[in-house]
């Protein structure tokens, strides 16, 4: 059985979701739950860190699609960081870079959240 784990960490003004292991149809509900938890807690600024993610399947990709609209609808966003070339390629093929902001470093995403927040004020 492939292992997968999600942890949430604070990274003001955003929350970082660290992914670890294999994200597939079996483990996707775990990530979904995490997103739901964040949105239920009105934390709409989310950074997903892919650094320790080994594999992502189409079911895993689907999870991001399910929550992006709600996050953006509440002045938030889901930004993706730290993808390995292989994972990036999967997102890229699907056209995700046209829909999501993808950064190499977590700090870049954090900076973007700060910028947009100040721009909004």
């Amino acid at each position, binding site marked *: 059985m492939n292992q997968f784990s999600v942890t949430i960490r604070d990274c003001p003004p955003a929350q970082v979701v660290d992914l670890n292991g294999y994200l597939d149809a079996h483990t996707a509900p775990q990530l*979904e739950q995490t997103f739901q938890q964040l949105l239920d807690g009105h934390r709409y600024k989310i950074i997903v860190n892919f650094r320790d993610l080994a594999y992502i399947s189409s*079911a895993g*990709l*689907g*999870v991001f*699609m399910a929550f992006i609209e709600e996050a953006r609808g509440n002045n938030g966003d889901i930004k993706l960081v730290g993808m390995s070339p292989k994972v990036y390629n999967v997102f890229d*093929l*699907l*056209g995700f870079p*046209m829909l999501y902001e993808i950064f190499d470093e977590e700090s870049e995403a954090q900076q973007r959240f700060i910028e947009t927040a100040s721009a909004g004020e």
Partner: protein
Amino acid sequence: MPTRTQRFEAYVAELPHFSLPTALAVLGASWGALGLYDLVFGGYESATPYEFDLLRVLIPLVGLAPMVIRLLQPKDVVDDNEAYGTFLRMTTMALLLAAAMTLLRVIPFSFTPEGIAESVWSFMVGRGAALLPLLAVPAIAEQLVRLLRYRSRRSVPRSAVIFTYAMIVGLVVGQVVPLSAAFDPDVPTPALALTPLLGMIALVLTARARWIVNLRKRQKLVVLGLSFIGMPIAMALITLVGDSELAKAVMSMSVGLATLSHGTGVALACVQLSLFVHALIALPTAEAIDRRNTEVSSQATFGRLLTRSFDMTDLIETSIGVACDVTASRAAWVELESGETRDLLLGASPRLTAAEALRLMSAQTPEGLTLAELVATRAGVQVVDRAEPLTAAPIASRPLAAGAAGAGTSGESKEKKAEKHKGPPALSTVAAAPLLAGDVRLGTLYVAKERAREFDREDLRILKTVADQIAMAMQHSQLISSSIEREKIEQEMMIARDLQQRLLPRSMPVSPWYDIDAESRPAHLVGGDYYDLVSFSDGTLGAVIADVSGKGPSAALYMGMIKGVIQALSGSTATPAELLAKINVALHGHIDQRWFATMTCAQIFEEQRMLRIARAGHCPTLVVRNGVGEYRRSRGIGLSIARPLMFERNLELEELHFAPDDYVVLLSDGLPEARSPEGEEYGYERLLATVTAAAAHQPSPAELRNTIFNELSAFVRGELPADDSTLLVLRWKPCTEPGAST
């Protein structure tokens, strides 16, 4: 060679069968006819049994004939409870008859010792009263014969047959013999000489009344009581040939019947005596035997459940009943454990409420834990006498759905019933046995009694046995249902696979310019890959390859939907980009947000040897032109991911021009992502190298497809694919052919 007895029995078996009402009706009719005859022709004053009158002999004989045949065709009693029922019927009938005969003594009527009525009144009343024993005695005799023929084996003991014959002989001889005028009226009939013999045979036959041994304790008590009062009742039947007025009235009507009463009475008295003794002897062991019998029957019940019931609730309901019976408990219930939740199944214990069960489960054990807590950690049976709940009952705070799951309804109704019973006696002793299947704890079985120290060692042993059986039956039921479930799923998969296969095009287009071949190899029985051929509005043909997210039946379902959308839209669409955009409009926001599909569509302009390709998130298209292979990857977002505007803005339509012997390979990501046993991916580069190398030999599309799949198989070495693999190969034909054909 059949014996004479066998031949006679075969003969008897062929005689007409009479039901009891019919036989009694015939008997009643003969009574009426005889009364009328005596009244009209013989005159009541000469109606004596000792004077020759053929009709007076024949009429009762004819009347009794159906009853006699019934005696000869007895149904053998083979079951203990049947024997008990027969005993009850026989004794009740005798009791009623004796009561009626006692009442009849109040009515004054008199006959001479010779059986002559002293007045018309006496004749009428006496004969009227005689109807009662006339009907009752043969019926009682029949029950008696049945009871005496009891054996747990089917073979009927010879003595039982002899007894039956002797009774019949007594009846017939008693009716006929007094015709001899030389007979002494003080001894009414020589047939009476048979009656001690009947009594003796009856005693012998009941010497091993085994059916009593297996009766329940309550039934044994009934037998004891009834046989005790049954003896004097039998005596009353004997007096039917004594000198009471009723006896004389009966005698004046039919001496044979009087003989039968006498014989029945004697035999009945002997049987009752014998049964009384038997019941008395069997009483001390009654409880033990009750318990053994319940245990045996519970084994049978479990056996049946194991083979028939896949319904867990059913199973537990029955189990609770069995547990209650075998331990002679007032109440039994089961606490089911499944992960976090605990369900209380109260079963059919009428006095048990959920609150009562909870109270007993939180009873304090010497270890300082509640009973529920203690039994949860031990493998053995635990008992608490004088159950006092711990003050802070921790069990109530656990998630516990009282009376849930099926049993809930019965549990609730029982609860209501229990409320109606004003103040049921509190259950004070409770025993608990874990339901263990191997190491898995399925729950706990509880039984409770009213009085303390009521559970003996034997009870606890049986409780453990029953708990083990219940656990086994539960596990069996789970296994069965999961295998049924699996079979169902497999069947659904087969149907889905069949459906999916039908979605794929049956034949490939034939063109002078190109050849096409395609194959999809699903990873599971049903996959998410799909390919098709479409016609655009200008009549050009297009090849489509798609991969819907998800696997199994749901993927096939979405695939069916995609096919429907494609086929509906393509005819009114000019380009692949337009088609993909329209599909995206049709899908986006209309299905599960997490769901998406990728697709590549290539429109074929055969004469120009040109393809217009649009890619919606699908993996790149492999093309080999002039022997050089490369991946083409135009911009495009997957279907149902982006809003229509965003989708269209990012969708690129690419035009690719080809020469003869060029190849186009549409593929799905299952190919490059296939892994070797070491976990290495086949990869896009390896695929490209394989295709480019193979294309150099100018294979047909089918050959190229086979080469690719073979290479892939060699690489994965039997490793099961994680995803579907689909290939659609197009080869531009060498330039001479189209020219030659046009």
